[in-house]
């Protein structure tokens, strides 16, 4: 529960900067300036937009099913926000429900489908309904590759506890209870007998501990793009065809909540991906001989320095991930619905299943 204290204000502030960042990134990719007028370099553009949104009238269509329509954005935001409660932030500040962390996250995030269906059906508009149907079909289909790829990581790390997964990926591995004697080997192959436990840095990240996770990582990245309705998988919104998909009829503050939850979802999948694959709150700098970069940039758990370093590494990795998501969004055109489905069912899911098998074998190598 305690991590909510950190994440609730963080999501709000992050969204303001993320919207600004997205505008700027898209502008630079398309050889434009982006917002330039409000404040220096348009810094306050998002704040101005937010103020405008809050002032706008909260319109409910006359023929809409009022209860469903009004409650839907709340459900969407709540379900995504609930996902944050299990995430660890620092080496000594972990989320709640630790035993089932990842599992809970996957479950609760799938709830936003309910909100989307409510919004789509409640609005009583064909654009909303079509957008909601597309969105739900997409999210449900892509939940499978996401779950399978997360399962690969769980098989390698043998835990549903996100904090334990985090500890495994750094020099502090032996500080976690029940892992006092665990060692990290190079590429996870114990037969090589190269002990990298004290190297730390990237050598103990999951994608290095078990290189089988690199393709898994790619699958995870692609399918979480679809999960968060980002381009090139933004058919549910499809501005050119469906106006705005399931949130066509929303205005003002409720629309802002839906937008907030979209950006929140981006942050959530980025944080989860960082924790699962990219070393969580561990530093990327390894110890090289006597230059103890990893020790210097990690700090002891339960100390101020340790907490600050952890937060810094976790959030900077996650924000980099989001920047890549935006980069991808402004590069690729939108997929067609059949291409979307075939990508999920014909390509990602079989590969993920095969990779689960390989991860199992790799885990045997790691013992």
């Amino acid at each position, binding site marked *: 529960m305690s991590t909510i204290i950190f994440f609730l204000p963080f999501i709000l502030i992050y969204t303001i900067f993320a919207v600004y960042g997205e505008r700027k990134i898209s502008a630079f990719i398309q050889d434009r300036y982006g917002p330039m007028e409000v404040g220096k370099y348009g810094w306050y553009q998002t704040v101005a937009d937010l103020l405008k949104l809050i002032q706008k009238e909260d319109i409910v269509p006359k*023929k809409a*099913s009022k*209860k*469903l329509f009004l409650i839907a954005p709340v459900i969407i935001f709540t379900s995504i926000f609930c996902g944050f409660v299990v995430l660890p932030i620092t080496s000594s500040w972990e989320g709640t*429900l630790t*035993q*089932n962390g990842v*599992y*809970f996250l*996957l*479950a*609760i995030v*799938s*709830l936003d*489908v*309910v909100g989307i*269906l*409510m919004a789509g*059906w409640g609005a*009583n508009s064909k654009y909303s*309904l079509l957008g909601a*149907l597309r969105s*739900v079909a997409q999210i*449900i289909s892509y*939940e499978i590759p996401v779950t399978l790829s997360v399962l690969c990581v769980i098989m390698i790390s043998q835990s*549903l506890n996100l904090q334990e997964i985090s500890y495994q990926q750094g020099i502090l591995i032996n500080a976690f209870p029940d892992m006092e004697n665990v060692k990290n080997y190079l590429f996870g192959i114990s037969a090589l007998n190269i002990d990298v436990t004290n190297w730390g840095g990237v050598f103990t990240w999951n994608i290095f501990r078990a290189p089988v996770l690199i393709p898994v990582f790619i699958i995870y990245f692609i399918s979480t793009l679809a999960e968060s309705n980002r381009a090139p998988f933004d058919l549910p919104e499809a501005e050119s065809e469906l106006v705005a998909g399931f949130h066509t009829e929303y205005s003002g503050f409720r629309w802002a909540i839906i937008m907030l939850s979209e950006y929140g979802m981006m942050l959530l999948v980025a944080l989860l991906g960082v924790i699962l694959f990219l070393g969580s709150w561990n530093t990327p700098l390894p110890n090289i001989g006597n230059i103890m970069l990893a020790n210097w940039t990690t700090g002891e758990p339960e100390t101020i320095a340790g907490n600050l370093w952890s937060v810094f590494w976790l959030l900077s990795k996650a924000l980099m991930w989001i920047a890549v998501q935006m980069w991808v969004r402004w590069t690729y055109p939108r997929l067609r619905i059949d291409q979307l489905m075939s990508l999920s069912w014909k390509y990602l899911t079989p590969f993920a299943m095969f990779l689960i098998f390989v991860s199992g074998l790799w885990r045997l190598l790691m013992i």
Partner: protein
Amino acid sequence: MNWMTTIFYFFGAITVLSALGILFTRNVLHATFLLMLSFFSVAGIYVLGNASFIGVTQLLIYVGGILILMVFGLMLTTKLNGKALVTENHNRLIGVLLGTVFFSILSYIIIFSANFEMLKSNKTLPENAVEFIGINLMSNYLIPFEIAAILLLVALIGAAVISEKRKEKQE
């Protein structure tokens, strides 16, 4: 009454009230979403009963899976014409009578007659339920586990075959 009990009563009230809502509402869509609420609070009850793994599974499969399927089924089996989807009741007398009788008999037994003395010994539950369940599924309960897997596969194929578009025989 400590806070655990309070939360339990809260979840229990939501569960039962939303279930009653399903019974009384005539709008099919509202019934589906009320069922979601009911399942959600049932998951809360599971977590309070030291079964957080099952609680999360409940969320994942029931709320995230089956309910969405229900809503899809609803969309596929109704004509959308802008009106609210309403359903009618039948066998009202028999149904309510049966339900009430069933409920009252069982609750009478539970409250007044049943004796759960054997369960009162305070045994400690396994520390890590997930690990325990996992190991047990792969050892003591391996055959049910495999049968469940086959059942799921059969259901998958069966559902695909049933709902497949068949050509009319006349053609």
